[in-house]
């Protein structure tokens, strides 16, 4: 059923008793042309673009829990493409362009809100770096504007722009098209659209092994039995090393826990996304009114999907130093997600050294904003057997070949990016 004002009116008149299920829950077939492991945003987007762009409809998405129950439902919903390095700029800008048309493409409101992403600068050195990055973005065709301290003070009255602020504000780099997208809707929208094209979405189906013959994938063992397939695409966020490890591969990845949290909901107080690299903090207000905050990793390997209190204290201290009035709010929830941190802070999208096995992983902090481009390019790689020019810089071989994409310049320390 196509969602529209007419379907809404028709269902309202029947007390919303007759909405169809948004996707089927089929039993797995014995064989598929391709299997995507992971039913989060990246896996579902991969399946949708495999069906839509490459006509591959005899495919399945296998999810060990429920759709969007991993990092798709745990991120802070921010989308942006304000990157300095060319490979990142082109890749994330491709994602931004897909975000802009995604609700129409999927016939599902993903609530893309171009409210802007403002990176605060707190020192003359940071100001120089922001100018350099902003100019690089504009040369790559991405929107970037510099905002002075006075402009920011008028725009965001809650932000402490005074001369006595703990971290004085010298200005900020704004990407106006950046903003937020409703994260759960992304998983649901891709799932519904992929299902409509014939993709089988199978939940509660954990992959327990990857079978190979003569260096090529032949299928996957799952908790619902063996499924034969010549192509397996991994989109499993923090568990990438575990899945790749089933084939004996070791990857340049460590799993770390990244926390986020929300305050109690309040009336509109913040109409953009504010970030500060100096204090490692970002904040926005959800449509429900909660202030959504995040910051640094906990800085130690973890698969626990929960973090520890020192980082929560750090978020709160950073928040109150920038927005003193938010100190009156209560925290409602904190949670953690497991992110696979690569050795250069950039993702890995491409073939693995086993025929038929591909990956979109190593998303570090930044997986959500990349979702549509990750799925689009992973689907391209699965269908064609080779990377697209946009993800060619992001293949696994770059580590052995010494062509890192190290946006932060932090070196091979997974937790430092």
């Amino acid at each position, binding site marked *: 059923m196509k969602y529209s004002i007419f379907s809404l009116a028709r269902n309202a008149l029947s007390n919303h008793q007759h909405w169809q299920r948004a996707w089927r829950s089929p039993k797995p077939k014995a064989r598929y042309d391709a299997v995507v492991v992971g039913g989060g945003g990246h896996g579902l987007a991969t399946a949708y673009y495999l069906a839509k762009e490459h006509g591959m409809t005899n495919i399945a998405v296998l999810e060990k829990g429920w759709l969007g129950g991993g990092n798709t439902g745990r991120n802070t919903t921010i989308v942006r493409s304000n990157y300095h390095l060319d490979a990142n700029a082109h890749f994330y800008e491709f994602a931004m362009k897909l975000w802009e048309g995604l609700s129409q493409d999927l016939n599902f409101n993903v609530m893309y809100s171009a409210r802007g992403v403002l990176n605060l600068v707190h020192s003359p050195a940071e100001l120089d770096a922001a100018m350099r990055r902003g100019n690089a973005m504009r040369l790559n065709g991405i929107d970037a504007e510099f905002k002075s301290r006075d402009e920011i003070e008028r725009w965001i009255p809650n932000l402490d722009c005074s001369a006595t602020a703990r971290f004085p504000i010298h200005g900020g780099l704004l990407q106006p098209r950046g903003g937020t997208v409703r994260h759960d809707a992304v998983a649901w929208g891709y799932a519904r659209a992929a299902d409509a094209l014939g993709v089988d979405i199978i939940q509660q189906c954990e992959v327990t092994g990857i079978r190979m013959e003569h260096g090529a994938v032949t299928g996957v063992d799952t908790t619902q039995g063996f499924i034969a397939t010549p192509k397996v695409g991994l989109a499993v966020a923090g*568990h990438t*090393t*575990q899945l790749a490890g089933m084939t004996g591969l*070791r*990857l*340049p*990845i*460590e*799993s770390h826990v990244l926390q986020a949290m929300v305050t109690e909901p309040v009336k509109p107080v913040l109409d953009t996304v504010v970030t500060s690299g100096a204090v490692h903090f970002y904040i926005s207000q959800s449509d429900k009114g909660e202030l959504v905050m995040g910051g640094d990793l906990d*800085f*130690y*390997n*973890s*698969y*626990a999907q929960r973090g*520890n*209190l*020192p980082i929560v204290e750090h978020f709160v201290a950073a928040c109150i130093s920038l927005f003193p009035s938010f100190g009156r709010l209560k925290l409602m929830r904190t949670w953690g997600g497991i992110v696979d941190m690569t*050795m250069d802070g950039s993702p890995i999208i491409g073939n693995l050294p086993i025929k038929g096995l591909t990956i979109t992983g190593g998303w570090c902090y930044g997986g959500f904003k990349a979702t549509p481009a990750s799925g689009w390019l992973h689907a391209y790689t699965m269908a064609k057997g080779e990377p697209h020019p946009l993800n060619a810089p992001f293949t696994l071989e770059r*580590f*052995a070949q010494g062509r890192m994409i190290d946006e932060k310049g932090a070196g*091979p*320390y*997974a*937790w430092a990016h």
Partner: protein
Amino acid sequence: MMLISCPCCGPRNQVEFTYGGDATLARPANDAPQALWFDYVYLRDNPSGPHDELWLHSAGCRRWFKVRRDTATHAILGSAKLDEALPNTMGAV
């Protein structure tokens, strides 16, 4: 919160420590083949479960030492000085 046992100072709050990553890596010789260096610099086992790792007691005695910690539960399973073996505990204590 994690209570990390420093071999010199005893059990202390995690905020006193800095993480140093996988303690099982063996640095190759300077003239070792590039493949060995690639392995050492980039590849990790990244286990879900007991993980031997380096920590620095940065707000204490400022010594590096080894900790065995369960990455699935954050339980600390043991600690030892750099030149000593970790206790043979692979489960919760």
